[in-house]
């Protein structure tokens, strides 16, 4: 039995190495995932284009505009003459928001009379609109406090009654979004290399007819499947290591916990997800079918996994469904190790969940592989 496996492995490795595309991909994918994707996969809101309508043109309104500019969140793209003009800017996407400062702004606040300003934000991207208005409102409030203290208005503090609120961000003090995304991106690389690629390989053999040739030989399904998976597991480790090294060198991103734990969990995940790839390859007759099936499930798995949206933010049914996605557990675990320094013992439930997936998918794959139809 082992003898057959040896010959099969030899074949698989030779084929892999000779392929003009795959070995390059194994290196390029983690590089791209670490270098380019973090630049893209970013929900941060920055560089909001603001159009100001300043009916007042006083020293105070100028000061306000300066303050807004120096906050770093906003880019003053235009100073319009009227609300209508500013709205045109927003409609044409030249600006994301507009701020209308009324005529007697400077005079009013110097005298301690309250005054209204209008903020209108493009909320098609709800997050952008919402966060943008909050930022601007906060800046206005700060400005308000500064003036009030200057003219010595009693107790005019919006953060009032004498206490100050100090936010502290643990695990990620600089709120660096990359640190949140990179563990998840590493897992994506792993999934593609250890799940998608072997599945495509097998379906490719189906299309070329070599799988039929193999089915007529005494080779058992265990050996055949194992011979397919082992090289891709190895390659998965390589890809993962490249990702880990690159994120360390380029971003200085080191795991708070032990990297061994990361690899342990990654191994279990690879076992599980490659099983999933195998199941698909058993049912798909052409590569096109395989790609579509994988795409379908991958999309579902990833969305439900907390990759983009934290699971807590999902509706109840989403949270329940997320437990059916192996990605949820592995991404959670890797993030916990990298950002919060958790150890293996802290994450036993996740590990067992991954084991469960591994048993389920691989069992299904072996049982549904038919040498005889």
């Amino acid at each position: 039995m082992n003898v057959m496996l040896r010959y099969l492995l030899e074949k698989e490795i030779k084929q892999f190495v000779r392929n003009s595309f795959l070995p390059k991909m194994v290196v390029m994918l983690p590089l791209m995932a670490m270098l380019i994707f973090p630049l893209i996969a970013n929900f941060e809101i920055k560089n909001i284009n603001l159009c100001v309508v300043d009916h007042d043109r006083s020293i105070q309104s100028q000061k306000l505009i300066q303050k807004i500019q120096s906050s770093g969140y906003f880019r003053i793209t235009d100073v319009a003459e009227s609300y209508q003009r500013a709205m045109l800017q927003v409609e044409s996407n030249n600006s994301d928001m507009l701020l209308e400062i009324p005529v007697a702004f400077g005079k009013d606040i110097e005298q301690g009379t309250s005054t209204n300003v209008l903020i209108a934000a493009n909320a098609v991207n709800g997050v952008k609109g919402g966060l943008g208005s909050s930022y601007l409102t906060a800046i206005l409030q700060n400005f308000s406090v500064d003036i009030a203290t200057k003219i010595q208005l009693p107790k005019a503090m919006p953060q009032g009654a004498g206490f100050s609120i100090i936010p502290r961000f643990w695990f990620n003090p600089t709120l660096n979004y990359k640190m949140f995304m990179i563990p998840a991106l590493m897992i994506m690389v792993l999934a593609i290399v250890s799940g998608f690629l072997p599945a495509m390989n097998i379906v490719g053999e189906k299309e070329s007819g070599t799988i039929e040739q193999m089915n007529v030989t005494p080779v058992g399904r265990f050996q055949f499947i194992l011979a397919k998976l082992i090289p891709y597991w190895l390659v998965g480790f390589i890809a993962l290591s490249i990702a880990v090294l690159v994120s360390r060198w380029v971003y200085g991103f080191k795991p708070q916990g032990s990297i061994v734990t990361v690899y342990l969990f990654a191994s279990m995940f690879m076992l599980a997800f490659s099983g999933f790839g195998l199941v698909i390859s058993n049912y798909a007759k052409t590569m096109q079918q395989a790609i579509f099936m994988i795409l379908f499930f991958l999309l579902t798995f990833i969305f439900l996994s907390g990759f983009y949206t934290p699971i807590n933010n999902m509706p109840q049914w989403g949270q329940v469904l997320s437990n059916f996605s192996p990605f949820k557990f592995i991404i959670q675990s890797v993030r916990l190790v990298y950002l919060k320094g958790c150890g293996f013992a802290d994450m036993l439930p996740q590990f067992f969940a991954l084991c469960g997936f591994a048993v389920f998918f691989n069992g299904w794959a072996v049982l549904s592989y038919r040498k005889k139809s």
Partner: protein
Amino acid sequence: MTSIGTDKTTQQIGKVIWAENLCKKFGAFTAVDHISFEIEKGEIFGFLGANGAGKTTAMRMLTGLSKPTSGKGVVAGFDINTQSEQIKKNIGYMSQKFALYEDLKVWENIRLYAGIYGVPKKEIAPRTDDPLHRLGFEKEKDTLVKSLPLGWKQKLAFSVAIFHEPKIVFLDEPTGGVDPAARRNFWEMIYQAADRGITVFVTTHYMDEAEYCNRVSIMVDGRIDALDTPKNLKDQFNASTMDEVFHHLARKSTRNAD
């Protein structure tokens, strides 16, 4: 082996392949309709028929690739319904697409299948030179299969199929897409194998190749409508070529080719 309790049983022992009332249905469609035959050791048996007549389906049942809907069969001493994995150890197979690994070299393909069929490691390398020499492409030992011309791939596929000296070799349309000269060449290889005692079971839709076989059967619409030596069939149907014999039988066919 299952006994059927007729005098046929004693005759079957010694046959290298026998089939009785084999059927394969796909839903309402009967691809193979109660076929029966016996094949002797060392025989070259041609399984003829038009495209879509059911030849490949029948072969797939014998080689353990497909489960019969009903019927019995024995190949190399093992039951096709219950012992297909044993069968596989004792046969060779060449599929319609030749199914060699295009991105492996010639000797690597040989080595792979030799190893799988249990040829001891030490023997593989020295034995590889034999067929390559016979085929005349020792120089191509290190060539990737995808660079070989079609005729050479065909010959290589055959060599790989018999490398482990199986009892029986199954060839599914081995001469498809190859020019007539190469086809004749190929049949010489088949003769050499048969001389060494390998039984050859070959399907084809080229009626002229029937002349090369010891016996042939002709399948029409899933049934075997004729089974005998080419000479006897030509006498029976008053034909001068197998082609004529075939046309005589095929006129009744209701199935269209694929």
